[in-house]
């Protein structure tokens, strides 16, 4: 079971600044463990972000993203109190959804 994300969302003028930290190994499939065996690829492959009930980001990611990645984005037109819902799924079918409220 995946560990929770850390989401920060705050208004800066008329723009919401949203940052999210995700807990994920993001294995590239190229790394070898101490015994010399290749560690199978294990990575987040899709991310969605909904703000105030609207889908604002729908994206695909791959193995070039780091372990425990940080994503940041700015959303125009959102307002304080809007709910931010972030969801990811990885190539092994594991998934995680977390939410936060945009602070003033």
């Amino acid at each position, binding site marked *: 079971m995946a*560990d*929770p994300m*850390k989401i920060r969302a705050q208004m800066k003028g008329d723009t919401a600044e949203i*940052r999210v*930290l995700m*807990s994920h*190994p*993001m294995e*590239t499939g190229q*790394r070898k*463990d101490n015994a010399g065996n290749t*560690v199978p690829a294990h990575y987040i492959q899709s991310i969605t972000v909904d*703000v105030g009930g*609207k889908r*604002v*980001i729908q*994206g695909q990611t791959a193995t*070039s*993203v*780091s*372990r*425990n*990645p*940080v*994503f*940041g*984005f*700015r*959303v*125009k*037109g*959102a307002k304080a109190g809007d709910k931010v819902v972030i969801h990811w799924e990885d190539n092994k079918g594991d998934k995680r959804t977390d939410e936060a409220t945009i602070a003033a």
Partner: protein
Amino acid sequence: MKQRLGMLLAAAALTTSFAVHAQQSAKKAPPAAKAAAPANKSEVSKEFEKFREVLEEDNPAELYEAKGEDIWKNKKGPNGTSMAQCDLGLGAGVVKGAYVHMPRYFADVGQVMDAERRVVHCMIKYLGYSEADIRKQPFSNVNKTPDHVSVITYVAAQSRNMKIAAPQKHPKEIEAYNIGKEIFAYRAGPYDFSCASCHGEDGKRIRTQDLPNLRKPDEAIRAYQGWPGYRMTGGFMLTQQWRMNDCFRQQRFPEPSYLSDSITALLAYMTVTANGQTYKGPGIKR
């Protein structure tokens, strides 16, 4: 309706691309900064400090802090006990400020313990963790950050921006300080090194790495800042006990047992020396 939503992903791309490089070079030593000339007081280190400050805002250490908090608050031992019963020196269950008040004497065990040792002690006693398992993998690696490392990260974070105040009242606390001071200065092994060989003088470096003079209060705090730390090269949390362990490796000594009296004593010496300085909480390391 006017509410059109736009987005900018540039920030995301920037933040992640660095960390990718960091992960891929996990097995190699940190690259030497050949381009910048560290002619005067280490320009390279200053640049790296700036970079680190930017990253502190979204330090993945927070993920481990959150996990540790969950274990501390919600996990139960086999007999229904929990970390609420764990006394880190400021009363049962009190976490706030505890990290900067250790190492200290604990009457229940009749000995001085540093923060990591005390946390592990409690996790064994109240949550039923197996000491053998913890000793099998005391430190994080690219495959696993053990639970106790997350709990220590949580405990350390609850002392963020507080002043180091390791007590020197109990005779055993004074003894730990004095023994630690001797361990710090003890030269032995094939290279004739002591801790002081690298950390006993002002303004020295190994390669481009600045070395704090740990005998001085304003520099001894640097042995605390950034620990526990998220290591970008590899992506896992490392604690102060790991830092001590790896110093002894480079000192060409045999390996100190995890959570041993020697390390507690050494930490007591270094912590007391740093007393009065402000601890900034878990950090990020290259």
